[in-house]
């Protein structure tokens, strides 16, 4: 992937395609960790992870709404849309890779990096990351497969330290293009919007995007729910940002209003790091013997996951009613997660979905 500063509509589309891919890229790691928790155990951690995963799906849908609003075409079935884990995030964060692994301290530490606040929001930590970031700007070769490769010669590649800053760049691009083009920027068919009538059971509402104000509101919701571009633990609606939700699991205590970052004073969070299926990290189909029932099960999962992405794509490409069915498909996938993760591989680890998706 190469992203360069947004100067035209095509550049805006590329950023929003990357945004959709980015939101999705967080979902397999979150769901692997979520469903690796043994059913019935760790209910608090389970609900924290589940709420975040559901909100990532909300963000994905909002990003698709914005892309549709500016005349783009969301497509979750393009080759390489689902990264092979371990993977870099598609917004050009190059100082860490994301693993698909069992619920563990290491997994939560990775999730903290995914959801980290914007640079400058965390004094004391920043200098290290800034140094790393500069190193990457100085010609460091990126390995991410992520977004469809498009390089624009003569433009410096963009790398973002956080998802919040990535969305800030999108917002600035939207404003710049809107100043040039006016409302012609929002040339998309409003019938493609997935509105609140198709969504349920998640913090924050789904909104149709039809103009600059609604596009900015959607970006604000994504940024504040996730990582925040400010240093607030709670957003303007009183909801705790993903970063701090995860941090509670490592610190073993809930945040409450008025707490300083890193020092939650709420009640204890009970976490049993051992009540977990020890799923293999970043599993691949090749980890399962060819012709085995386990291999078949893993392939069935990948097919079902690919079908889910295809259904979402139909919903985003003009059949919004398919969205309800796509969300229903997630419940079916949950059963497949458990069926796979209960299988011991004989080396102390258990099987896990591999997300090697091909669309036939």
């Amino acid at each position, binding site marked *: 992937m190469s992203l360069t500063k947004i100067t035209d509509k095509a550049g805006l589309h590329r950023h929003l395609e990357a945004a959709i891919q980015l939101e999705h890229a967080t979902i397999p790691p979150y769901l692997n960790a979520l469903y690796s928790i043994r059913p019935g155990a760790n209910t608090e951690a389970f609900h924290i992870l589940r709420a975040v995963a559901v909100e990532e799906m909300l963000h994905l849908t909002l990003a698709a709404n914005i892309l549709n609003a500016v005349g783009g075409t969301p497509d979750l079935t393009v080759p390489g849309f689902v990264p092979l884990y371990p993977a870099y995030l598609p917004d050009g964060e190059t100082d860490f890779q994301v693993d698909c692994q069992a619920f563990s301290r290491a997994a939560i530490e990775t999730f903290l990096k995914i959801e980290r606040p914007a640079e400058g929001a965390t004094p004391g930590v920043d200098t290290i990351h800034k140094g790393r970031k500069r190193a990457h700007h100085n010609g460091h070769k990126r390995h991410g497969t992520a977004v469809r490769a498009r390089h624009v010669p003569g433009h410096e590649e963009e790398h973002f330290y956080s998802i919040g800053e990535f969305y800030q760049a999108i917002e600035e691009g939207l404003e710049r293009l809107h100043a040039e083009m006016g409302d012609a920027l929002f040339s998309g068919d409003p019938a493609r919007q997935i509105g609140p009538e198709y969504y349920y059971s998640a913090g924050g509402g789904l909104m149709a995007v039809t103009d600059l104000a609604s596009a900015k509101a959607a970006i604000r919701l994504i940024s504040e729910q996730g990582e925040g571009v400010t240093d607030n633990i709670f957003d303007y609606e009183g909801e705790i940002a993903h970063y701090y939700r995860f941090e509670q699991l490592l610190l073993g205590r809930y945040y409450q209003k008025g707490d300083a970052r890193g020092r939650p004073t709420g009640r204890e969070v009970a976490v049993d790091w051992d009540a977990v299926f020890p799923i293999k990290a970043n599993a691949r189909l090749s980890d399962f013997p060819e012709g085995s029932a386990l291999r*078949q*099960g893993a392939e*069935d999962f990948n097919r079902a996951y690919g079908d889910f992405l295809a259904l979402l794509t139909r919903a985003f490409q003009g059949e919004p009613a398919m969205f309800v069915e796509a969300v*229903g498909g997630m419940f079916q996938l949950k*059963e*497949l997660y458990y*069926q796979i993760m209960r*299988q011991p591989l004989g080396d102390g680890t258990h099987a896990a979905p591999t997300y090697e998706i091909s669309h036939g």
Partner: protein
Amino acid sequence: MADMLDGFLALSEALTGFTGQRLRGTGQAEAYLATATGIVGEGVMRDLLLAAAEARASSGGDTEKHEAELRRLVMSDDRLGPVARNIIRMWYVGSWYQLPKPWREAHGQSPRDHDHVVSPISYTEGLLWPAIGANPAGAKPAGYGMWAMPPRIAPG
């Protein structure tokens, strides 16, 4: 008991018609083996698994022959047959049912041999649901509005 698990799964595949992968996917294999063994005793369980292994071996991969041998060596055996039938019941509905009176009189009674649900999730993980193409009532919700569509059941 861990050394009996593979044999138990092989027997269970033959008894239920589901793959070992699908059986393990219910998360109940260990619980069912432990329940049955705890009630009938390790001696009966080992004999059952040996008879099942013999049925497999003598059929040489021929499904029909395997079934016939299983009926001859296991299902029609006074001591092993009722236990095998109870194992089928556990896989399909998640409960252990008290063994028939003649079996208990002939082979010993266990205080644990009474009707009971094996684990909190054994009923919803029962094979009867994929077998009839439905989701367990009141469990495994399919999502808002999905009741308007045909049931979508995870592949068996």
